[in-house]
């Protein structure tokens, strides 16, 4: 075996090595710092990530090389997601700082785990071999299992952690079983080899299809697609808020980065066999997610179901993948980017609100627009964008996705997706109505009697007065501004991003030149 070939381009993995080093450094510095200086760790992590982002862009720009005999590939697709995940890590850490200081112990390990999960996501987007992808997926999942149950003294967090671990182990087992069936029938695990085998799979055994189906089910669990979604609301509700945000954005983006490459590079030749299955899952997922979201009272549960609906939209893009058109692949990636900005805007707003009040029921947000107009406006923008109104990110990204679906002859799916966007507009409006029209619980005296039916009586001792004394920290406000700007940027002028996406798509779908 020519070992020299394996290590000749090892420098391309420098960002990954340095990211692991950074995580270890955070663990180590944590030991040296006194308890009241732990915030420094967040700054170390953020500074390190910014440096890594610059390094990755400078080092890997335009690279298109396989490493370790095709196990992983450093191409523009990997670079796009690497930059995206690093940025995401930065924003999640920034929006966690206040929350962690107030509500969580072990801050050093918290930031270290975020760094490890970013590393795992990078490998997921880069791997072109199914076991490597699986192992990276496990690294990400393990980090999330721990972060979800990070609030040790909160029974809900513990419950969420246990549920997530059990479902995660269960779905990993299904995924592994599918991989082993795939391997036992065709004897290869590299995406390129799988694709070559499927291309002339006229005589393939049924075990191969069972294997593919099991892989689909396993990934369905990981992204919480219906009917494999039942864990998501409980886990989202129980996890600490920044972790919920990270879970809703990061784990989904990474799982879809993996899925997109897997389906585009490995399963593409047999698209006629799985397209309709993925399309049906997408249809069920967005419909169930959006319909059940209407009934939610807790903001985290609402966003859990709304994110299930978003997974449905992303699956529309997977179903509409095509060897000759970059539209669906671009749409999936653009939706991931837009959805992340948007969802983070909403979540960061909720984090800021929770930091001030410690509440997370939808009714608690009543009158927020009077007390914190910017917070309410940012969250409203995020929700409009999630619903897909024009000028916001959600419109542009959904436009790409639905066009792709329509082009591939999945007109019914595109229509259903539009109906679902309308449904989602309703429950976002409910939340926005609470923030803007419903009076705050403690302001009932000042406002017209129409508010008499407000289900939330003013708290004894004036909890809201306490809330008005505090205002969101400048840090949270800064992150929020960035997210809102990002939402508008993707919505109004997405072309620079689309250019990057074209390059990324041509890396995984060489035939789909734009």
């Amino acid at each position, binding site marked *: *075996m020519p*070992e020299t070939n*394996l290590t000749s381009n090892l420098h391309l*993995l420098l960002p990954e090595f340095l990211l*692991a080093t950074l995580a270890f450094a955070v*663990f180590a510095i944590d030991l040296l710092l006194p*308890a009241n200086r732990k915030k420094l760790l967040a700054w170390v992590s953020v500074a390190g990530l910014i440096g890594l982002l610059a390094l990755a862009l400078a080092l890997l720009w335009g690279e298109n090389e396989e*490493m*370790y*005999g095709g*196990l*992983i590939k450093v191409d523009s697709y990997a670079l796009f997601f690497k930059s995206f995940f690093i940025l995401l890590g930065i924003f999640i850490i920034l929006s966690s700082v206040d929350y962690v200081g107030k509500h969580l*112990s*072990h801050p050093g*390990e918290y930031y*270290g*785990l975020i760094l*490890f999960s970013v*590393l*795992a996501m990078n*490998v997921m987007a880069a*791997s072109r*071999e199914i*076991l*490597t992808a699986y*192992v*990276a997926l*496990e*690294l990400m999942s*393990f*980090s999330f*299992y*721990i972060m979800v*149950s*990070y609030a*040790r*003294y909160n029974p809900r967090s513990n419950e969420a*952690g246990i549920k997530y671990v059990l479902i995660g182990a269960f779905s990993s087992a299904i995924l592994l079983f599918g991989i082993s069936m795939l391997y036992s029938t065709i004897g290869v695990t590299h995406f390129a080899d799988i694709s070559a085998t499927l291309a002339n799979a006229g005589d393939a055994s049924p075990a191969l299809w069972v294997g593919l189906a099991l892989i689909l089910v396993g990934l369905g669990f990981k992204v919480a697609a219906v009917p494999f979604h039942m864990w998501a609301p409980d886990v989202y509700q129980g996890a600490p808020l920044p972790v919920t945000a990270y879970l809703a954005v990061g784990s989904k983006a990474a799982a879809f980065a993996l899925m997109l490459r897997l389906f585009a590079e490995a399963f593409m030749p047999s698209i006629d066999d799985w397209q309709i299955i993925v399309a049906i899952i997408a249809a069920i997922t967005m419909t169930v997610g959006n319909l059940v979201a209407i009934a939610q009272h807790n903001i985290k549960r609402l966003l859990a179901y709304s994110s299930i609906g978003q997974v449905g939209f992303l699956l529309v893009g997977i179903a509409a993948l095509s060897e000759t058109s970059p539209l669906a692949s671009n749409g999936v990636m653009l939706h991931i980017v837009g959805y992340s900005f948007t969802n983070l805007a909403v979540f960061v707003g909720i984090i800021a609100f929770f930091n001030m009040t410690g509440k997370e029921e939808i009714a608690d947000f009543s009158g927020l627009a009077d007390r914190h107009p910017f917070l309410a406006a940012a969250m409203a923008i995020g929700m409009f964008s999630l619903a897909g109104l024009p000028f916001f990110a959600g419109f542009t990204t959904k436009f790409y996705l639905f066009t792709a679906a329509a082009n591939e002859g999945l007109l019914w799916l595109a229509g259903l997706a539009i109906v679902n966007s309308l449904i989602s507009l309703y429950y976002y409006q409910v939340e926005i109505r609470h923030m803007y029209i419903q009076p705050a619980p403690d302001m009932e005296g000042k406002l017209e009697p129409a508010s008499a039916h407000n289900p939330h009586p003013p708290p004894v001792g004036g909890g809201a007065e306490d809330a008005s004394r505090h205002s969101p920290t400048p840090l949270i406000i800064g992150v929020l501004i960035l997210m809102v700007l990002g939402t508008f940027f993707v919505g109004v002028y997405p072309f620079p991003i689309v250019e990057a996406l074209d390059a990324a798509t041509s890396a995984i779908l060489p035939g789909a030149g734009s």
Partner: protein
Amino acid sequence: MSEPLFVIVAILTLGGGLGVVATRNVVHAALFLLLSLVSVAGIYLLVFAEFLALVQVLIYGGAIIIVLIFAIMLTRSQEYPRISDNPQWPLAIVAGLAVFGVLAASFLWNLPPASEPEGPGLAKIGESLFTKWAVPFEVVSLVLLVALVGAIIIAGRAGDRE
């Protein structure tokens, strides 16, 4: 194959198996089972099936026995040292003999040809693990690290808070 070594290992295997059924203490039974399974790994080693021996120790000696002991500790914390006489022992004898019969029959029916032991040697496995499969190998080590960190955070002693 060195005959004396095989005899020793075989006695250990069978002795462990006998211990499992003879002892009245569940924990002892689990430990006897461990002895028996690890001895089987020894037999694999004697025929130079290194990879098989490794997997035998990892899976049976490690994972399965640990799960077994966990199950014992979690379910019968009060009365676990005692096994009451299980009325199903005649059924167990029949099942055991049946499995033995099937295995022995299939072995005698289709006697495997005497052959040189072969298979992926440990050296080869190690080489490919550290060259071709280095990336997933490293990632797995991080998975273990993260799991350890999590165990300390979640199950460790109460921290400086509350």
